[in-house]
């Protein structure tokens, strides 16, 4: 089967559009469409995986803007295949779950469309090799994530959470773009694989790498940017399960995994990445223990696990990268299952607060089993995939003799085991002290059954892959050779660490009340007052205040002053360039023909007259006359296109002036203040003199030899046109033209907005 990934990406785009525009009553068809796309991707992945695990790399290229080396270059390797199978596999579960969970919501199709669009962007991100393509897909995931977090846009909380997420990750995206550009410049290639193959060194590369790291850290919610992820739980639960646990937050890890083989020896890599990862792991685990909302508990758990992966990538050795990718796979499976379980609990019990929930496990034993399987994988209990992968990480750390990081990771993992237990106990246990049920409408049992399917399958995948880790191992090994993933490692140190971690976790759960008290005491202390979320709020407020101040100074509202500033800049900026370039304006030599002299007179006379008149309208008409005469000069010199355009521009401009002038006083103000008129005269003479000097200077600087326009003229027949001006506009320099009409369109929007102030189009009825 020879289906390119580009075809698959187009299928995602097409499906997203179809689903987005489908009427609400076609819910079943839209769910089927979304599922079909994901199933198709899974089949494609299986087809590709065979050769990719043997180390083959498939490359697809679609040129985009070759002159800027911007392209869609897809590089389908083991890492890409791993991500694509997670994205489509978990995505399939999410689509199925969403169908049962929120099909009755009014804007379900919009939600589904965003999910599909996000999945496509994420697949593109995981396979792209061109740094600019990477940035484009990266931002696409940011935008779709923003729309999904703010899906319940009638709630102020959702909107501000979405804004926080998009500002944080958007800022990181900009840093990433800057970093990638620097790295690409330093390496001399825009290909990620090329950059990694011969990693640049030096100050530019270090700055570039740091910026790229900032991008990765914001996306993967690493400290100190971790605060946006718990906020993003405002998204509908299926979206949280997909974006904020299984896929999008892994994009940062993906980038780290892609960069690690080239940059793990860079001086900043290991210290920065490992310490950020460890700090995040501890903060996340600590906060997760304190949560009473199941979804927030999982969110902080995700922060912690992402820190775990980051730290592993930070060490950068193949064994560590191997372990990191393995942990990433198991985390995607159990965390999405857990999130979906919370969604099911929420719809049956009407709450996800641990203090209110009681007895859900007895009512829905299958759901409790699902939660148990997934939570046990999170805790690292054998024989689940979570155990196998965590074991691999411990073994790698022991082999590398990283004792201090091992201790921190083990402690955090104990906390992970504790909050896994707390999750399951809080969600399903029958608790005597809590009221029987917290109210809300329990969903009918039938709905619950359909809700359980997706999380149960995802959780079971953790069991199957844990019992037969060879499948995961082959994929991960193709990315980075490390110790084999096995279910039973034998009596080794890593097993002792795993066992200790689980036992400690159980003890922590039993002693949870004293831990709660200890945390309470700490929360009252000074250290915990430093909150990243507050720092964010403070920054936003300060930014707005500074922006207000600057606007107050710069946008003072005096039109003559604006004009003066603009015109002065027009003179001053090129003057500097002239100063560097040197050269003296030379007067053109040679006799002037009579028509030339006549036209010159026609240009100068109305301009001088415009100085003397007092009526604004007359002045405008005189300036129009100057324009018409200029058009005459263009005709004389054989530029009919220019002349035609200028004539029409002058005509339309005079008409527009007439409209504006009807709202202004008929006559110019009488200048009483002499200094002001002197300043205006100086600016005017300066601009006029400058333009004249520039023209003379330019005409004196003609290089002998073929002019660039000659090259265009030779190429014009090939472009299929005889009018060289038009061929340049619509073909050779069409990108410029596209930019210009964008400016025109923006101006049109600006005019409409400024004058009618975004009035609703009721005006038609006038």
């Amino acid at each position, binding site marked *: 089967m020879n289906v390119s990934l580009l075809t698959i990406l187009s299928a995602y785009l097409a499906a997203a559009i179809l689903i987005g525009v489908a009427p609400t009553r076609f819910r079943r068809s839209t769910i089927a469409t979304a599922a079909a796309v994901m199933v198709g991707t899974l089949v494609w992945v299986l087809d590709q995986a065979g050769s990719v695990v043997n180390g083959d790399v498939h490359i697809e290229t679609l040129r985009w803007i070759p002159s800027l080396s911007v392209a869609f270059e897809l590089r389908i390797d083991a890492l890409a295949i791993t991500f694509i199978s997670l994205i489509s596999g978990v995505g399939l579960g999410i689509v199925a779950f969403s169908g049962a969970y929120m099909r009755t919501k009014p804007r379900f199709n919009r939600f589904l469309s965003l999910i599909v669009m996000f999945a496509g962007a994420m697949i593109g991100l995981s396979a792209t090799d061109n740094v600019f393509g990477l940035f484009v897909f990266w931002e696409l995931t940011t935008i779709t994530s923003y729309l999904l977090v703010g899906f319940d846009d009638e709630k102020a909380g959702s909107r501000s959470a979405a804004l926080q997420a998009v500002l944080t990750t958007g800022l990181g995206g900009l840093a990433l773009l800057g970093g990638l550009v620097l790295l690409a410049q330093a390496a001399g290639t825009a290909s990620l694989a090329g950059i990694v193959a011969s990693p640049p060194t030096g100050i530019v590369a270090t700055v570039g790498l740091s910026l790229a790291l900032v991008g990765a850290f914001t996306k993967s919610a690493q400290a100190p940017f971790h605060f946006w992820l718990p906020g993003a739980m405002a998204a509908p639960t299926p979206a949280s399960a997909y974006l904020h646990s299984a896929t999008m937050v892994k994009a940062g890890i993906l980038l780290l995994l892609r960069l690690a083989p080239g940059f793990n020896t860079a001086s900043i890599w290991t210290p920065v990445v490992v310490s950020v990862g460890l700090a995040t792991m501890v903060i996340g685990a600590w906060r997760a223990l304190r949560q009473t909302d199941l979804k927030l508990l999982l969110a902080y758990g995700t922060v912690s696990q992402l820190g775990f992966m980051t730290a592993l990538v930070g060490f950068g050795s193949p064994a560590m990268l191997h372990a990191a990718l393995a942990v990433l796979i198991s985390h995607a499976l159990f965390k999405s299952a857990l999130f979906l379980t919370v969604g099911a609990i929420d719809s049956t019990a009407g709450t996800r607060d641990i203090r209110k929930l009681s007895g859900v496990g007895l009512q829905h034993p299958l759901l409790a089993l699902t939660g148990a399987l997934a939570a046990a994988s999170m805790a690292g209990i054998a024989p689940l995939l979570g155990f196998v992968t965590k074991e691999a990480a411990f073994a790698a750390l022991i082999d590398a003799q990283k004792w201090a990081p091992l201790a921190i990771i083990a402690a955090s993992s104990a906390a992970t085991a504790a909050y896994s237990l707390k999750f399951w106990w809080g969600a399903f246990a029958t608790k005597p002290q809590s009221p029987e049920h917290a109210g809300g409408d329990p969903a009918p049992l039938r709905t619950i059954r359909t809700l359980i399917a997706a999380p149960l399958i995802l959780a079971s995948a953790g069991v199957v892959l844990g019992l037969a880790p060879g499948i995961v191992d082959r994929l991960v090994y193709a990315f980075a050779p490390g110790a084999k993933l096995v279910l039973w490692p034998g009596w080794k140190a890593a097993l002792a660490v795993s066992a200790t971690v689980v036992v400690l976790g159980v003890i922590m759960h039993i002693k949870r009340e004293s831990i709660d008290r200890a945390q309470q005491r700490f929360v009252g202390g000074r250290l915990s007052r430093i909150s990243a979320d507050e720092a964010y709020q403070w920054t936003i407020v300060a930014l707005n205040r500074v922006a207000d101040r600057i606007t107050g100074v710069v946008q003072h509202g005096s039109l003559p002053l604006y004009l003066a500033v603009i015109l002065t800049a027009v003179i001053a900026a090129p003057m500097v360039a002239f100063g560097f370039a040197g050269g003296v304006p030379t007067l053109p030599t040679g006799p002037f023909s009579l028509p030339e002299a006549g036209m010159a007179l026609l240009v100068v006379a109305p301009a001088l007259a415009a100085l003397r008149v007092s009526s604004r309208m007359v002045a405008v008409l005189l300036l129009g006359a100057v324009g018409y005469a200029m058009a005459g000069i263009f005709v004389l010199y054989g530029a009919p296109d220019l002349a035609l355009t200028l004539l*029409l521009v002058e*005509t*339309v401009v005079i008409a527009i002036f007439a*409209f504006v002038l009807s709202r202004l006083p008929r006559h110019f103000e009488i200048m009483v203040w002499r200094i002001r008129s002197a300043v205006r005269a100086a600016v005017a003479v300066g601009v006029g003199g400058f333009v004249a000097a520039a023209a003379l200077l330019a005409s004196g600087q003609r290089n002998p030899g073929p002019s660039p326009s000659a090259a265009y003229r030779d190429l014009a027949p090939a472009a299929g046109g005889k009018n060289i001006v038009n061929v340049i506009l*619509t073909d050779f320099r069409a990108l410029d*033209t596209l930019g210009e*009409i964008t400016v025109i*369109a923006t101006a049109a929007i600006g005019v409409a907005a400024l004058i009618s102030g975004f009035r609703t*189009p009721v005006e038609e009825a006038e």
Partner: protein
Amino acid sequence: MNVRQSLLAETGSRTVVPTIFIVSLFLLVVGHDAPGGGFVGGLLAGAALLVVFLSGGRNEVRTLLPLHPRSLVGLGMAVSITVASLGLVFGSSFLDAGKITLDLWLVGEISAGSSLLFDVGVYLVVVGLVATVLMELGRPEESAS
């Protein structure tokens, strides 16, 4: 701005305006080989709208246009960007130009390059801008209404 209705202007515009429109389309089509193009054509069509405004007022302009001015601008952008993207799909890169040649019976060979379609987008954006300015600036003033 108040426009006084005048029989002379109205009758005159009725003959002049269609002519200007046809010339503007002519300029658009021949642009690739002779003086003209989307920008100039669009401006000329804008000038035609101006004549309509002066003789018949704002509502006359609105009824003449098939779309709301801002939709014209949007449509123009969409046309140009679509044509540019076609180069990505069928050609080798964004904005790569293509050409179709049709051999019509009796008419002879007609060729239309993608650059003409691109210019159609430019034309629409420029007409849309002039129309927007006319509709907005020509709005009766609040105090007067």
